[in-house]
């Protein structure tokens, strides 16, 4: 257990150092920089780029979670069952659009900046959450649902007290997947002037500076690993089987 904690601490510390004090890593990245070119990206603070990147991902994922879970709740009610196939195809279409195409289509409407990126991340995040929420809500143990009705819980109460808590671990697994996808996808937001860590990577690509590409890539990667891990922990803590142990 202690070793596992240490294993988590190392990438976390590394990430903080990379973001707050990038100069310290200059010797490490120097071999990848072009002759005489800059080694460390300094045009903008990496900290502010990271925060903006995370902010976009958080906002889009939150919206996607709210919409996808609400939709899943609606189509798993008896009255909403008819809309299940339709909602599924709508969400699937959101997923099949390449994010670049979404950006291209959204820019004329929303202009450059964070807007189109948010839309792309949101659409992209819907599917895993919706699918998982639907699975979670429609595979609850029948005897538990019967008991909930049998002791006189109202529909609302059943949803809040029994169905959603029981489906929560499955829903969270969808959220986790969707957040990690969004962390990666957000980098291309920089092509339409959203402030994300993609800026560093794209600057590197444009100037043939592999050091920049690595810096941006490593930071995004570490964020993804740590957030994935954190959400897995949360999921496990919330699952009823775990509580039993």
């Amino acid at each position, binding site marked *: 257990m202690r070793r596992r904690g240490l294993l988590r601490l190392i990438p976390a510390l590394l990430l903080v150092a990379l973001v707050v004090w990038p100069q310290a890593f200059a010797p490490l990245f120097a071999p990848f920089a072009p002759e005489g070119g800059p080694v460390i990206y300094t045009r903008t603070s990496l900290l502010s780029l990271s925060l903006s990147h995370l902010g976009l991902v958080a906002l889009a994922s939150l919206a996607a979670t709210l919409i996808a879970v609400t939709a899943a709740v609606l189509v798993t009610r008896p009255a909403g069952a008819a809309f299940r196939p339709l909602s599924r195809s709508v969400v699937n279409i959101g997923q099949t659009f390449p994010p670049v195409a979404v950006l291209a289509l959204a820019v004329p409407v929303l202009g450059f900046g964070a807007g189109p990126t948010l839309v792309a991340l949101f659409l992209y995040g819907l599917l895993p959450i919706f699918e998982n929420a639907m699975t979670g809500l429609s595979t609850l143990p029948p*005897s*538990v649902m019967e008991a909930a009705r049998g002791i006189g819980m109202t529909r609302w109460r059943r949803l809040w007290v029994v169905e959603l808590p029981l489906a929560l671990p499955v829903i969270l697994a969808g959220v986790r997947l969707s957040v990690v996808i969004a962390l990666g996808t957000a980098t291309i937001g920089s092509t339409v002037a959203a402030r994300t860590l993609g800026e560093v990577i794209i600057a590197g690509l444009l100037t043939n500076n592999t050091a920049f590409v690595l810096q941006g890539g490593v930071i995004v990667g570490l964020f993804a690993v740590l957030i994935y891990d954190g959400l897995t922990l949360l999921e496990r803590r919330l699952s*009823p*089987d775990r509580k*039993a142990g």
Partner: protein
Amino acid sequence: MIEIDEITKIYQGQRAVDAVSTTIETGTIACIVGTSGSGKTTLLRMINRLVEPTSGEVRLNGEATSAMPPHLLRRRIGYAIQGHGLFPHHTVARNIGAVPRLLGWPKAKIAERVDELLDLFGMEPSQFRARYPAALSGGQQQRVGVARALASRPDLLLMDEPFGALDPIIRARAQEDLRRIQRQLGSTILLVTHDMEEAIRLGDKVCVMDGGKLVQDAAPTRIVADPASRFVAEMVGDAERPLRLLSLIPLSDLLEPGEAPGDPLDEGANLRDALSACLWTGREAVPVSRDGAPVGRVTLEAIRAAALRHGATDDAPVPA
């Protein structure tokens, strides 16, 4: 009093429950017995409206259940579901307190009630209160399920095979507990079982179901001594009928003055116990005691006569 009036449930043209009528008096236990698929669960679920009847009516103390909002009706009726149905994400205490919480009881009163019920079912509250259902044995889960049904002290309890997962010893204890609790509280219980032995032991009345129909509905002694059909006789078990019957007659019925050798039986025991004692120890009579003091004896002769009396009325062929 529960009046079930010509209640019918049709699933895809099949009559799962077919025009069943019966009355259950307040403060009694009615056991519904029948083979698998005979419509027992469906009948039970129509009483708290988990299933809406195709036709017919159920009245609780004269009031038609169809006139009450289902969730309020269900809060008045304790329900122990087939296979317990505990909430896996709630502790034992929270599971048991589910209905009192719905009814808005104060926290302290709920906690007190939970401990009381755990005690009643022989589960140490400090040890079990905070556990999750997955950390209980099958029998413990089932007892918690029954405790949940009892929590708000409902006047009416519906129990669907509540003791199915218990081993014979715990099962017998749980049955005794239920009987005791029921007598104490004067609750009315409808209990589904496929075990005739259990129905005879617990029921003030036994309702035998076959293919959705109620084929006989009578006191246990009558079901055993005078089965209404071949099917009921088979359910009772032809060969076991005399013993079943003897197990329903208390020693006090045949008590006579006099002495007998060997260990005494308590007055509350039944003729089957006395017969076993006679056969096993080669005695012609057993002494009977009340609160440990001898009050007389029961003889093998008298037991044989009692069996014969019932057997003789039974000589008439059982209707097919």
